[in-house]
């Protein structure tokens, strides 16, 4: 009584129609049949896919530059910007003869994103001074164990012959920055 939600139980006698249950049953079946001919609420993924926004934030990519050298210099700004602390990295020094592999004298020897931690906010991309990390419209695939969700460089760095288009995610500011040819890393 305190919550005013208690209901009084009434032991009302059912009528004959209610007793045989058939009308209630039939009305239930009618609802089911009506729904059979309606358009379904689900799609048959992966054969059909729902439309997504052009700037969808999905699985990350570590870009290479025009010559195929990795852009990431392991500066750690993405990791420090990451609110979920999903990114870890180890830096290494580029040796002589590796200039075509890495753009700067320092590079990420190990670069890992924990996709279970990642909240796909895109702050890493915003923090990146080298235009190395971008979020793409790819969806992170499912897997069986937790370990498989820690994506290393093998999954993150784009292949030289299979470039990933990120033009839609490059903002006006980024493009303007890129046009400043006097900055040596844009040359």
């Amino acid at each position, binding site marked *: 009584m305190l919550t005013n939600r208690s209901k009084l139980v009434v032991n009302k006698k059912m009528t004959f129609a209610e007793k045989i249950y058939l009308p209630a049953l039939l009305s239930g079946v009618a609802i089911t049949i009506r729904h059979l001919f309606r358009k379904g609420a689900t799609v048959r993924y992966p054969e059909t896919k729902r439309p997504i926004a052009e700037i969808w934030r999905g699985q990350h990519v570590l870009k290479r530059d025009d010559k195929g050298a990795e852009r990431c210099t392991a*500066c750690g700004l993405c990791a420090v910007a990451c609110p979920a602390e999903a990114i870890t990295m180890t*830096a290494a020094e580029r040796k002589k003869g590796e200039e075509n592999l890495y753009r700067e*004298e320092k590079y990420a020897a190990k670069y890992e994103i924990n996709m279970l931690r990642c909240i796909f906010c895109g702050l890493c991309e915003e923090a990146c001074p080298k235009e190395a990390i971008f979020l793409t419209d790819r969806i992170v695939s499912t897997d069986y164990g937790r370990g498989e969700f820690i994506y290393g460089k093998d999954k993150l760095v784009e292949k030289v012959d299979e470039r990933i288009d990120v033009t839609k995610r490059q903002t006006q500011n980024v493009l303007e920055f890129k046009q400043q040819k006097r900055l040596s890393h844009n040359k």
Partner: protein
Amino acid sequence: MAKVTIDGIEVEVADGTTILNAARQIGGEVVPPAMCYYSSLKDTGGKCRVCLVKVTQGSAKDPRPMPKLVASCRTPVMDGMVVQNITSPEVLEARKGVVEFLLLNHPLDCPVCDQAGECDLQNLSYEHGVGKTRYEEDRRTFEKIDIGDKIKLHMTRCILCYRCTFVADQLTQERVHGVLNRGDASEISTYIEKAVDNDFSGNMIDVCPVGALTDKTFRFKSRVWFTKPLDAHRDCDKCCGKVVLWTKGDDVLRVSARKDQYNEVKEYICNECRYDHKDMKDWTIEGPRHIDRHSVISQNHYEKIDMQKLKLDIDRQLTFQKGKQLPETTNP
């Protein structure tokens, strides 16, 4: 004793004190930044021009203002002197220009540089600089040089503050490096790249305000904001043995001397402490190092709050806020 007023705050200091040190006795926001002056090294200062201030009244006897902005690290105070630092737009404008000059030839390689996160030039340009450069020429470039097997010299990053040569002059027996050439072409170098090899040479790394002289044993090991700084000490017969350990997990990545609030070392450490004891077992850990909460290093850094120090900071801030209102009321 001389009475000076800096940004509306009066302070009494000993005769012969420089304006910069008088401001440091007040503390807080009125302290001019300094890139070349170093309190524990003699004769430093006067080179970077970052600490420029305006003297609106020379002294009580001669109240004329000084004709130009003066370098506060080299100008001694006079009784009755009135100085403007951050309350003068002229000073801030000049400082902005100085920072732009310092950054003319400074490369944009903070993402690669080991000093990033504890760099005086980074802090300075963040506070006083402009976001864009107007310089279109090519920056001067130099090859990287190994000074000995422990120090790496990136001459491209150097701002020619001369602190490292003063370290060599005053802390070590024989100076083997100096500044060669003049003007735009001047560079720090050792004669015929002779290795700097004596017990206190490692302190050059700590006094360098930029990333020109960096620890080779720490090179690219970790960004400084991913490490945990701990105060530690050990018995050392050569130096005081009081250091900061920059650790990650149980690994000691780097050992450096303790810097005060102006990023200056008061007690130098020897090379043995710096390079040869990178093991937690060699040290007595005192606790987490105090890191300014505005620093990027304070991320994920926890320490015990010193209530007395906190109260001092708050009191100083309150006096400063009161002082800021003074000039407005006197000159309507």
